[in-house]
């Protein structure tokens, strides 16, 4: 089984508090710590487990700048066999459809049975996987949380509301977006990273992919973010202040009043 896993480099929200910059129109990008999108780790782990069972290889791929190479290397340290970086000045500020178009061109240069994306990334879009499948004209399922390989078919589970699960049989090739919790992604130590530090990661640009830069680039993006802002919210919480003891006293009174203590 040849599996391609799409991975994205994103600001790590557990390492940084995402805040607006001084001008209030963008996030503060100074000192941001980046890592691989949380969902993509689960996708890579799932691919590795499938290949362990049925054989094959795992390739990780990312659309991004040079720094996305770090993310590919981390996933290779997990065990992915190959990494491919798709990078070109023309790819800056593309929309989700642009990302899917670039990935499609790369997919067509390979021979993959199965393609994984994460269910969603930092901007919560949950769009690239479904778009990629539609562009490739192969079946798609989102929010996948179990996979069982049966020959050239997969039995998969999709997470729906209330902890319930929708089961489908889906044929290969297909695109699946992977939900967190499907497995327990393996730990990557510093030694693992060192082992793949000098493995070459090919970089492909628009020309290599046979893409017309004007057709995929920012100018072709029909969806554009104009700025970031903080909305005026309703009343917001009453923040309890004072010493810990004072705060606890106030909180206990409130809990008593609201039926929070039995």
């Amino acid at each position, binding site marked *: 089984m040849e599996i391609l896993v799409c991975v994205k480099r994103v600001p790590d929200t557990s390492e940084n*508090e995402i805040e607006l910059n001084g001008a209030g129109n963008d996030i503060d990008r100074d000192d941001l710590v980046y890592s691989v999108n949380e969902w993509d780790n689960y996708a890579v782990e799932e691919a590795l487990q499938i290949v362990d069972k049925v054989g094959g290889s795992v390739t990780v791929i990312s659309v991004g700048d040079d720094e996305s190479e770090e993310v590919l290397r981390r996933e290779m340290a997990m065990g992915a066999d190959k990494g491919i970086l798709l990078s070109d000045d023309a790819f800056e500020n593309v929309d989700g459809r642009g990302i899917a178009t670039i990935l499609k061109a790369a997919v067509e240069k390979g021979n993959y049975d199965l393609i994984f994306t994460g269910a969603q990334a930092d901007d*919560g879009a949950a769009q690239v*996987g479904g778009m990629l499948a539609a562009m490739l004209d192969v*079946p798609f399922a989102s929010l996948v949380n179990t996979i069982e390989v049966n020959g050239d078919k997969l039995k998969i589970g999709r997470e*729906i509301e209330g902890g319930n699960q*929708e089961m489908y049989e889906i044929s290969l090739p*297909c695109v699946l977006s992977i939900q967190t919790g499907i497995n327990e992604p393996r730990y990557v130590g510093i030694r693992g990273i060192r082992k793949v530090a000098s493995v070459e990661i090919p970089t492909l640009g628009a020309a290599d992919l046979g893409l017309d830069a004007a057709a995929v680039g920012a100018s072709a993006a029909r969806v554009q973010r*104009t700025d970031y802002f903080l909305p005026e919210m309703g009343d917001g*919480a009453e923040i309890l202040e004072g010493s810990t003891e004072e705060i606890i006293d106030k909180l206990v009174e409130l809990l008593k009043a609201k039926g*929070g203590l039995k």
Partner: protein
Amino acid sequence: MAQVFAYILHKDGVVDDTALELAAAAKKIDAGATPNAIVVGAGDALDGVCNDMAASYGEVWKVANDALTYPDAEIVRKLLANILPADSIVLFAHEHLGMDLAPGLSVKLDAAFVPDVVDIEGADGSTLKLVRQEFGGAVSAHVTCDASQGAVMTIRPGVFAADESKSAGGQVVDKSADAGDFAATRKFLEIVEAEAGDVDITKSEVLVSCGRGIEDEENLEIAFDLAKAMGADVSCSRPIVDAKWLPKARQVGTSGQTVKPKVYLACGISGSFQHMGGIKGNPFIVAINKNAKAPIFQVADVGIVTDMLDFLPELTEKIEEL
């Protein structure tokens, strides 16, 4: 402005709450126009759903076929691509079916796609001005969408107040014959129901709920100690279940349980909409979080900016003394 369509979710003849929220969203795109609805399904209850929707939408496009008894996104996407006019604006609820169906539909229609829209500021010609959230709600973003070749959008459930006016006086139009074939590219097998857990948090009156801020499995003890002192149960956010620290039956949220407590203590939980979507009945929400800017403070009644790992044991001690 192009015609707006809303995809209606329904089950066993009952229309989902989002159906009238999408009607409200459609009116924010074009206040003067009457949006249309699309109702897809099978069986006797379908006509009731269509008639219901005719009160709120101009035309209700019905597609009936036994293959649609269970709405498989792969089948529905194909039929929508067949029946929708070029350049339409199509709205879905941002939930699991919309996430499965809508991005691919935008490709098939060659329309723009905007996911998880939380507000619509209006239209300027064929450019839509929309609001989204990023980074789990930490910041919002203005987004423009060129809808000149149509647009597909998913709308976050619960953010638009339902349009209850029911004054559309619409009509049902049967489009089943135009839908093409209903061949499946994946085969629906069954629904596997969630396993029941050791406690039923949907019945709990008081919940001590832990999020990623608990940091370590061993630290869960401080939440259980507090819950014991308060007479509460322990629930959690999704990452705690993903890490297998607590069973799925204790997860609050859209893909977990819907709870209706009197008091909800959110400890180390950022307040994502998928988590908050599982909290109903307007409980008294106390947020304990070390980040003063965490989105949870926008929706909680009372907030405490502190390290929960220090705070919870002190609170437990105080309550035990009472």
